[in-house]
């Protein structure tokens, strides 16, 4: 694999490809290069894991619920709207 060396990624390039990698939008050869870099680089492997963790944490934010008062207001809004329907 020595021949590939010239085309090898460096870490600074690899971090810019993380989203394309996760989105599955890298070309096959680019993905292979990215994965080959990860295989030899614990720091970039950690970086990728942290990006995944970041996405996972953001995905676990639950929306705040309405206050009971706001809920009542929306019930009113709905009833008013219904009453205006033919």
């Amino acid at each position: 694999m020595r021949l590939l060396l010239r085309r090898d990624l460096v870490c600074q390039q690899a971090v810019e490809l993380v989203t394309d990698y996760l989105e599955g939008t890298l070309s096959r050869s680019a993905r292979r290069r990215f994965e080959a870099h990860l295989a030899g680089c614990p720091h970039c492997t950690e970086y990728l894991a942290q990006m995944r963790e970041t996405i996972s944490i953001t995905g676990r934010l639950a929306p705040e619920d309405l206050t009971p008062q706001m809920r009542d207001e929306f019930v009113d809004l709905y009833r008013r709207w219904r009453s205006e329907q033919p």
Partner: protein
Amino acid sequence: MSRPWPWLGRRSARPILSVMDSDGELLLGLRSGDERAFVSLVRRYHEPMLQLAASFVPSRAVAEEVVQDTWLAVLRGLEGFEERSSLKTWLFRILVNRARTTGTREQRSVPVADPEPVVDPSRFDASGGWADPPEHWIEAAEGRMEAGKLADRVRVWIDELPARQREVVLLRDVEGMSSEEVCTVLALSEGNQRVLLHRGRSRLRQLAEDEFRGVR
């Protein structure tokens, strides 16, 4: 004959709609005029819509007006909704259109390929390898998350993102929309959506690292 397990499989005449119901079920409820379906929908999306609207307009008060208007538009448009997109995409699309026409933010230009790197260049050596590699924080974050003590911080970080990155992160990662849906809602190209997502996520990762490294 009495039922052996009366608490199982019993159907009430009108199913109780809750925030746990799928959007599809809520849509059915809405179409049959069930006000509980409407309230469930509002409970699910009001806050996320406010958060997104706030990104387009100058104040929280204006954002609230936009969202209120959106709910009315949703009620009025329900009959004509053809389900060519998901209910959620439709809702957010109405919201963004209203927020854009209300917003005073000047016409936003398309983000050009910005050469700005997502990781501080000083963290790499001359050959582009890590000089100051990422510190471990995943386990610490999971611990704080489970203790319910991280979510509020993460919300603050999201608020601190530049508006366009925040919009994409909110829809993609908080709301869990697909990239196609986000592009539809925000009228973005796939490429621009990805650039904004990349910056936003990378920035959040950095903020998490700072948090657990004790910088902030």
